[in-house]
């Protein structure tokens, strides 16, 4: 009765091992297919959600930072909602970067042999091995940058995971069997406290999503229905923004009390005073 979060440098391996682990344990699957449901629920394009998960914001590509954070927040809230149901294997939805501090979540990193991946890419696209290696290296750099911008984390840091498995010698099926065994350990059983932590994350994500629909620069923390929102505003807009946040956040189910912390937006204020 736990949750498993799988992250990999190779999307195909991620899906294969995630699916196989879910099959062995009889758990639910939470993969990129969820984006379709999220898109329908929030009335956004599925392609935009997928793009937000892969690339950083760019005005040129029609993905401004405000929208980008909103899309990521929608995904986060929906993933957390489903993870709260337990018995789930989740992959390709960046959950390893925001499901933090949940003791019943087994976090696994899968590493693939970069040489094998380059060879496969070269064969698939009819390009040279060197070109394939360059493409993979670029993708890796972009991914590191994406993780840093989106969640301020380095997903290659082994400290983020309970287990790291290298597929260089270990077969994907064996990796799935190992993960399935690990999740049976007592420490990964959900407890009242760990469930509560997950519920707190979920509520914070729901409030953030509601607020990011119309605002930006929003950080939310929650504890037992008590929500703390931190944002930036000009001095003169402080009261107006506080009221708006309280109203919006208060309308989310499960929120009992909203506390708003406004940091002065000194850069905007300085820019306005120079006008």
């Amino acid at each position, binding site marked *: 009765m736990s949750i498993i979060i799988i992250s990999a440098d190779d999307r195909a391996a991620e899906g294969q091992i995630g699916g196989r682990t879910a099959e062995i344990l009889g758990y639910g699957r939470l993969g990129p297919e969820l984006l379709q449901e999220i898109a329908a629920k929030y009335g956004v394009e599925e392609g935009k959600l997928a793009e937000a998960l892969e690339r950083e914001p760019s005005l040129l590509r029609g993905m401004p930072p405000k929208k980008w954070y909103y899309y990521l927040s929608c995904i986060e809230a929906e993933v957390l909602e489903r993870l709260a149901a337990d018995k789930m294997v989740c992959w390709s939805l960046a959950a390893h970067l925001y499901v933090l501090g949940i*003791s019943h979540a087994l976090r696994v*990193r899968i590493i693939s042999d970069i040489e094998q991946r380059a060879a496969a890419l070269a064969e698939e696209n009819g390009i040279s091995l060197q070109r394939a290696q360059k493409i993979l290296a670029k993708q890796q750099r972009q991914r590191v940058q994406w993780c840093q911008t989106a969640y301020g984390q380095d997903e290659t840091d082994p*400290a983020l995971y309970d*287990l*790291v498995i*290298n597929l260089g*010698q270990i077969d994907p099926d*064996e990796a799935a069997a190992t993960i399935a*065994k690990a999740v049976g350990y007592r*420490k990964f059983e959900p407890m009242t406290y760990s469930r509560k932590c997950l519920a707190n994350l979920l509520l914070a994500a729901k409030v953030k999503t509601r607020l990011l629909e119309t605002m930006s620069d929003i950080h939310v923390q929650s504890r037992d229905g008590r929500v703390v929102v931190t944002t930036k505003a000009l001095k003169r807009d402080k009261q107006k923004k506080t009221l708006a946040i309280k109203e919006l956040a208060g309308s989310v189910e499960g929120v009992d009390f909203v506390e708003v912390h406004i940091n002065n937006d000194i850069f905007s204020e300085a820019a306005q005073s120079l006008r």
Partner: protein
Amino acid sequence: MAIITISRGSYYMGKAVAEKVAEKLGYPLVSRDVLLEASERFRVPEIKLVRAIHDAPGILDRLSHSKQSYIAYIRAALAERAAAEGKLVYHGLAGHLLLTGLEQVLKVRVTADMQRRVAQEMERSNIGAQKAREILLKDDLQRRRWTKALYGVDPSDSSLYDLVVRIDKITVDQAVDFICEVAGNACFQATEKCRQKARDFALACRVKAALVEEWPNIRVACHYGNVIVYPKEREAKAGKLRKRLDQVCSALEGIHNVEIHRASQPPEDAV
């Protein structure tokens, strides 16, 4: 049947894991004793080998290449144990790098969270948390520098290992179960080809250990008892290499042929 290397830092619980894995699988446990063997065989004080495997090379070491020699001695002793025993658990620094070239090696890294490590160091040395943290960070830095200087890699890079287990939610006993189970996988079972490779690897390491003091950058490969030596261009000019090589190889069993390949690229499995 597998060779398992367990890499760890100070107070990562790697030693406890290695001991229990060896006990559970009935494998010999190798760690510091490999230094003793190297010390006896190559007549080098053990303390120099301990420093060679722990401290990052200083400027003088880089000039004299002494550290390379000591590492080559340790590697030769470890490779010989691996070839003779066929199965063992090695724990200590850089086992996964010392045995690069062997196929059936399960490379494991054991990590733990900093708080737990600090608590252990505080208890052992009877010091405050701040001091304990400083000691551990310094030790980690030293190990990182050592591995970077000698092998050009960062020991915390997960891609160097087959399995990285974090002792936190996973206990020592559970980590042991894991490692034993993974070691039982087909890919880590020794075949006759693997055994031959282990014997070749041990021979290459022995030849390198015998030559490294005079030719620090020499590379050695061995395939089915045929030894190929790859000296650097300017080193190869010295005619004494051939003479020394003949001496060395005549003293070692299992070598059928010896060749010197000047100015050609050594293969990946050359030591």
